[in-house]
């Protein structure tokens, strides 16, 4: 062999070795699928995945070495985040490796948990469902992947047919949904994050994106360091990190955002600066009749104008504490057609007993002023969970929902679903199940007193910490011997501690997944590492229970041809994916997604084939196939220049209008006082929320050393003047008490935020300081979303911080 042949042989050897590594797939011989984005550098295999945490939907590059995640990078090819992350995203890989991961199914025996086998656990769940099918409920979340939510949805709505499924997203963005439905007749924002690149003015309605959606906030404010002008207006009840960047910080009294929105509308009407041509062509007017409904009743423009007449700047100032000059400033901006204005909101407007109303009013201000449908001109709600949109809103895992925006109360919709699911006609139950607060109230109520729910299976969420008024809604059920709580989770959370049966779950890149973010972007990732111990994906858990029910002869588990509800064939043979060893033989995510996709055309929320999401860093629906067979996403809905479903020449068309004439509804809602206001006995407002370091109930982020060290404990923020009056200093222990519960917390004055006088703020991430013992379960009448932002409390300075004793 001459030298040249030797060189060629070694080159071929290297190439073959590389090809072998590439062909072997993600983690082991079992994972047959490989992502086209995989690359290997110095023994580290990198692949794309959306971040596990919030609803922004950043993509990360996950570095895996020797079967473990070792590093994370911002994905430079992702349009959402362009290579940048927040501190949670950079540390998301550490969320897998907390030392107390759950690794075995556990059954409660008295005060102890004992390990049981997966077979026994699955059978136990199936037996509970068979014993009382009507009382068996699934409580999921906006952290369910799309296939996980879809499988649970089909099991409950198409199989057990009791409609008892609801998600924690009910606590998070249900009012955004009803706001969109009431206004446009169809859910989810028309605009997208591209609006942030183009807007001249951005208004934050009770929103703190510098901490809660930091990557989007940077996308916006970093424009300033490139020399662009962005006017940021912070409408808020608390000075926050976002306020620090704002041109105008407009503080208002809790609950008076409705008065402010009406004040803007009033001035647009009174000055004639509203967009007459936009209103004439694209808007109708709406208000509640004698019986309030989500659709409301038509009113004339003159009637609308007359009702708004009361909201003069001076009246708004009196109601809200916002100066008349600030109301005029907002009206000046909305009255200027040359500006592009984007409104952003999240929990401030959604966790609100008037959530549907304030959502509708903000849409109304944009529609009335014509600040809609051009890049940069958009009312945009943000979500807090990675798939609040993708799974809850689009797969419809709410008590009344069916996939694709369909609802169980509509006969036509039920027929459509029965056809796609190949069910016998009439299988789907027309009666909606219980919404979250009602579901848990019934679970915590004895059967003889109307507590008709006796088993709840919780997946990917932590209601023991995140429900409002937790004593009443969940703790009470633990004293009722016939109630059975099943919890699938990755760590021993507050809910796991309350459970009867605990199932260890796989999380994030330990399984395949798909999610949908706040801007209608559907995202996909492949499994990259093995889950610890006996932990298994939630999707498998749901399907295994369905199969067990099928084997035990539950008729609902069969389609109209007698086949298993989740029947899956490859090359003419049934794939037994319910046997865990066979679960990764096929891509179950893909099979379920392709079935689900058939629903999405009903409301023009078209999704592309799974393969398109494998290639992309997410695509925004509707994704429509082009004549050249490629798939095109839609950035700006209802706008002719971008949305393929808008009639040519229409300019803007609301093609799911509730009035079926292509028009959006501009609503009138009056300002009304909240259900519980501070009084002599409980003189302070309590607002709850998040901090940048922690996500949701902290079950993942509190196990990440860097995040825990930076924010190890909850606290109460008190206004400086109030603190001085009550002689409270930072670090002092303060007793916070509402009509529902009390809690001792250290005070922090002018710390992370500064609330307006008469109000306090407490973050909810800390399971050792459960602020939801104090919060109110009062909820919006349409969305059934509770108000975590406003209830009455009193403060007592208990003692100086004992930790400072020397």
């Amino acid at each position, binding site marked *: 062999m001459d030298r040249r042949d030797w060189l060629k042989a070694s080159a071929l050897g290297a190439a073959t070795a590389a090809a072998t590594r590439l062909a072997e797939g993600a983690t082991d011989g079992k994972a047959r699928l490989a992502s086209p984005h995989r690359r290997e550098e110095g023994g580290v295999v990198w692949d794309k995945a959306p971040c596990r945490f919030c609803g922004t939907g950043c993509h990360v590059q996950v570095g895996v070495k020797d079967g473990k995640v070792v590093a994370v990078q911002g994905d430079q090819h992702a349009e959402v985040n362009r290579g940048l992350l927040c501190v949670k995203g950079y540390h998301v890989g550490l969320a897998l490796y907390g030392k107390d991961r759950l690794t075995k199914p556990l059954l409660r025996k008295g005060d102890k948990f004992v390990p049981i086998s997966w077979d026994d656990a699955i059978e136990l769940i199936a037996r509970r469902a068979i014993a009382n099918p009507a009382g068996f409920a699934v409580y999921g979340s906006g952290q369910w992947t799309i296939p996980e939510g879809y499988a649970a949805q089909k099991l409950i709505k198409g199989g057990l047919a009791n409609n008892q499924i609801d998600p924690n997203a009910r606590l998070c963005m249900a009012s955004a949904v009803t706001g969109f439905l009431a206004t446009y007749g169809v859910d989810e924002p028309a605009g997208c994050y591209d609006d942030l690149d183009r807007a001249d003015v951005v208004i934050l309605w009770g929103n703190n994106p510098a901490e809660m959606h930091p990557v989007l906030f940077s996308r916006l404010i970093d424009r300033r360091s490139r020399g662009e002008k962005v006017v940021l207006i912070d409408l808020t009840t608390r000075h926050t990190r976002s306020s620090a960047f704002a041109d105008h910080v407009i503080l208002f009294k809790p609950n008076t955002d409705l008065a402010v929105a009406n004040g803007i509308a009033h001035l647009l009407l009174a000055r004639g600066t509203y967009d007459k041509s936009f209103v004439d062509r694209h808007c109708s007017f709406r208000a509640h009749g004698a019986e309030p409904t989500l659709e409301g009743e038509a009113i004339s423009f003159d009637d609308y104008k007359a009702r708004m007449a009361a909201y003069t700047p001076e009246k708004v100032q009196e109601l809200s504490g916002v100066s008349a000059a600030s109301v005029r400033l907002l009206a000046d901006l909305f009255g200027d057609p040359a500006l592009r204005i984007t409104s952003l909101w999240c929990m401030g407007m959604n966790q609100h007993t008037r959530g549907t109303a304030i959502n509708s009013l903000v849409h109304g201000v944009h529609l009335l002023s014509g600040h809609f449908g051009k890049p940069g001109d958009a009312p945009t709600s943000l979500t807090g969970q990675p798939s609040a949109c993708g799974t809850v809103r689009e797969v419809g895992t709410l008590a009344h929902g069916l996939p694709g925006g369909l609802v169980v109360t509509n006969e036509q919709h039920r027929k459509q679903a029965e056809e796609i699911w190949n069910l016998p006609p009439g299988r789907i139950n027309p009666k909606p199940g219980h919404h979250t607060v009602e579901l848990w109230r019934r679970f915590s109520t004895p059967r003889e007193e109307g507590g008709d729910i006796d088993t709840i299976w919780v997946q990917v969420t932590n209601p023991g910490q995140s429900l409002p008024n937790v004593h009443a809604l969940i703790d009470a059920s633990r004293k009722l011997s016939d109630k059975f709580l099943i919890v699938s989770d990755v760590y021993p959370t507050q809910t796991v501690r309350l459970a009867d049966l605990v199932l260890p779950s796989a999380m994030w890149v330990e399984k395949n997944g798909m999610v949908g973010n706040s801007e209608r972007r559907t995202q996909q990732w492949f499994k990259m590492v093995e889950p610890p111990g006996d932990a298994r994906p939630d999707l498998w858990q749901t399907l295994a229970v369905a199969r067990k029910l099928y084997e035990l002869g539950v008729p609902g588990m069969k389609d109209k041809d007698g086949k298993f509800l989740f029947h899956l064939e490859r090359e003419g043979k049934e794939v037994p994916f319910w046997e865990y060893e066979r679960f990764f033989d096929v891509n179950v995510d893909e099979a379920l997604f392709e079935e689900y996709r058939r629903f999405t055309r009903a409301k023009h929320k078209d999704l592309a084939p799974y393969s398109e999401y494998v290639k992309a860093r997410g695509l925004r629906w509707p994704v429509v196939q082009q004549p050249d067979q490629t798939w095109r996403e839609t950035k700006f809905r209802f706008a002719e220049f971008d949305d393929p479903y808008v009639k040519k020449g229409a300019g803007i068309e609301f093609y799911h209008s509730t009035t079926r004439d292509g028009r959006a509804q501009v609503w009138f809602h009056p300002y009304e006082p909240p259900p519980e206001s501070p009084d002599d006995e409980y003189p302070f407002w309590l607002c709850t929320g998040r901090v940048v370091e922690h996500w949701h109930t902290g079950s993942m982020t509190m196990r990440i050393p860097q995040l825990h060290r930076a924010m190890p404990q909850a606290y109460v923020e008190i206004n400086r003047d109030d603190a001085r009056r009550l002689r409270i200093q930072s670090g002092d222990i303060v007793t916070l008490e509402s009509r529902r519960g009390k809690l001792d917390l250290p005070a922090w004055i002018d710390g992370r935020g500064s609330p307006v006088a008469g109000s306090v703020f407490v973050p909810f991430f800390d399971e050792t300081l459960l602020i939801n013992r104090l919060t109110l379960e009062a909820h919006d009448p349409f969305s059934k979303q509770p108000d975590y932002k406003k209830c009455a409390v009193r403060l007592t300075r208990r*003692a100086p911080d004992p930790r400072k004793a020397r």
Partner: protein
Amino acid sequence: MNGGAPSQAPRRLAHVAAALTLGLAFVGFLRGVRETGHHAANPPPTLAASYAPAPGYAELRAVQRGPNARLYDGAFPALSRGLPGPGASVEQPPEARSAAVAARAARRAYDGAPPTIPHDVDQQRAPACLACHESGAVVAGEVARRMSHARHDNCLQCHVVRADPRPGAPSVPAPDNGFVGLTSPLRGARAYDGAPPTIPHSTWMREQCASCHGPAGAPGLRSTHPHRQSCTQCHTPSAGLDQRELAGTAGPAGWSPVP
């Protein structure tokens, strides 16, 4: 001079008024500073006698952590000392590199993770960071490194403090986590002895080489030739590490659609 007397009186009055104001302000200040003493003397009825009095503002400052706490005494003269220039002599003790890499690792979860902040920060107003870190400074003997990346104004989005930011709060043990982060590569590859080494890490968000390798860099990481500014002329970054190979929308491989 006659006209002088009437104008003197108001001026004297003004002086007296000013002195009074200052005096009142001083008393007010003392009262403010001694607020806690006042509390201790008149404890609210619920306060148990066993609790020590809360510390005053001056004490609070003393228990703040990190170099920024010292900003109050002599920070500005220190700032003016500035950073060493590019012509400064560079020592490269051979054992210093692993020490420098270990120090880096202590401040981040893995190579490429944003470092934590070793001092107190203003919790509400982030852009203060840029005062020192936009171009780098020496503060009270400590190097405030120039940030390694382009300017992003929401600094505390990625960088968090290393201990509870609440004043006076003691540090609590961090949770136990089994994550083992990717370690910093100790050196780049050289094509031959004496050739310039390649860049062994991603340059994404680390494009300001001088941040670590400049004259203020840790010994061991510091460049021996800081006067040369065009680093990538000789040291090549890796397309793979920098994600430049990922075109983004190529076809799926090893993956077959549902039949």
